[in-house]
């Protein structure tokens, strides 16, 4: 019987990196085909393959870590570094859109009327739904921390409650934001104001949906006894991601919704 003489995880061969790369190719070429020839088939194929890749790859990671014990402390450390680096890359992603916003809004051109908001734009009142959205996300940051503490204290029932509440708040934010998008008096096509507003808040909304999904998976895993009071990195990663989403919103709120009105 051969055993490894180290604490690291030598992963078994897996098809998911290849299917993921194939999905990336199908999505990029699919996008180009859609632009030029109006067909969405390739894009849909790529998205389906992406979804299947993510489900199966992460399912396998859960099997390797939770059921097979491969996530030793050094392995977990590597996973922590990985999540932190990923979130850092996302910070830079959003930094670009904030750069675009400030570039256009700090020195508004004559075409806009030399002012910000540009002539003809009626921005949303920052003290209405946007303020509620801020409260919702801040509250969800509290509930996810409550869930973490419950988890660490071995309090199963409260961990489930707090995590459920966090997810509900996430969905509430998404619903409110969707309504705001529908009711807004301006669109993405309304000059650079519309562009910066909807691209920045739109990508943020996408990240809220991703974060909510991640938290939901954690809830299902918690219900199925995957987490222990000492070892629950999947949950921690989801919580870090959720806090990141919250912080991005705070910057969006202060810059675009409040200062930008």
């Amino acid at each position, binding site marked *: 019987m051969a055993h490894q003489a180290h604490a690291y995880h030598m992963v078994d061969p897996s098809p998911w990196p290849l299917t993921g790369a194939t999905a990336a190719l199908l999505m990029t070429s699919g996008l180009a085909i859609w632009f030029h020839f109006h067909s969405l088939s390739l894009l849909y194929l790529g998205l389906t393959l992406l979804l299947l890749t993510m489900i199966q790859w992460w399912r396998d990671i859960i099997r390797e870590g939770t059921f097979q014990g491969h996530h030793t402390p050094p392995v977990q450390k590597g996973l922590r570094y990985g999540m932190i680096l990923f979130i850092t890359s996302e910070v830079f992603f959003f930094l670009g859109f904030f750069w675009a916003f400030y570039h256009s809004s700090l*020195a508004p*051109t*004559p075409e*806009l*009327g*030399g*002012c910000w908001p540009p*002539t*003809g734009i009626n921005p949303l009142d920052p003290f209405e739904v946007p303020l509620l959205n801020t409260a919702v996300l801040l509250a969800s940051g509290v509930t996810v921390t409550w869930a973490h503490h419950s988890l660490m204290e071995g309090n199963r029932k409260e961990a489930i409650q707090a995590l459920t509440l966090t997810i509900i708040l996430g969905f509430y934010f998404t619903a409110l934001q969707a309504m705001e998008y529908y009711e807004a008096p301006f669109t993405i096509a309304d000059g650079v104001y519309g562009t910066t507003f909807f691209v920045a808040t739109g990508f943020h909304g996408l990240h809220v949906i991703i974060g909510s999904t991640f938290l939901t998976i954690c809830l299902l895993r918690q219900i199925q006894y995957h987490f222990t009071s000492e070892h629950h990195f999947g949950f921690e990663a989801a919580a870090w991601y959720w806090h990141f989403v919250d912080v991005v919103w705070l910057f969006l709120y202060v810059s675009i919704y409040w200062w930008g009105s």
Partner: protein
Amino acid sequence: MMAEDIQAKLKNYKTAPFDARFPNQNQTRNCFQNYLDFHRCTKVLTAKGADTTPCEWFRRVYKSLCPISWINKWNDQLEEGTFPGKI
């Protein structure tokens, strides 16, 4: 007294002088601001029924600085009621 100063300044006008509000190479805002200021000045003084000669300074400056196509475009917009600046 101020009227004589304005007349003197206008008589000695050669081109737009250095404006410390716009110190850099990109003078777009200098042009736009003077165009706005001319029209705002004219609007306010005609509303009071006063002499609009002081506004001449702004007109000279924007005429010196602005590309003619910009002036024409903005004048057309003013006529149409679609000029985006606040006058």
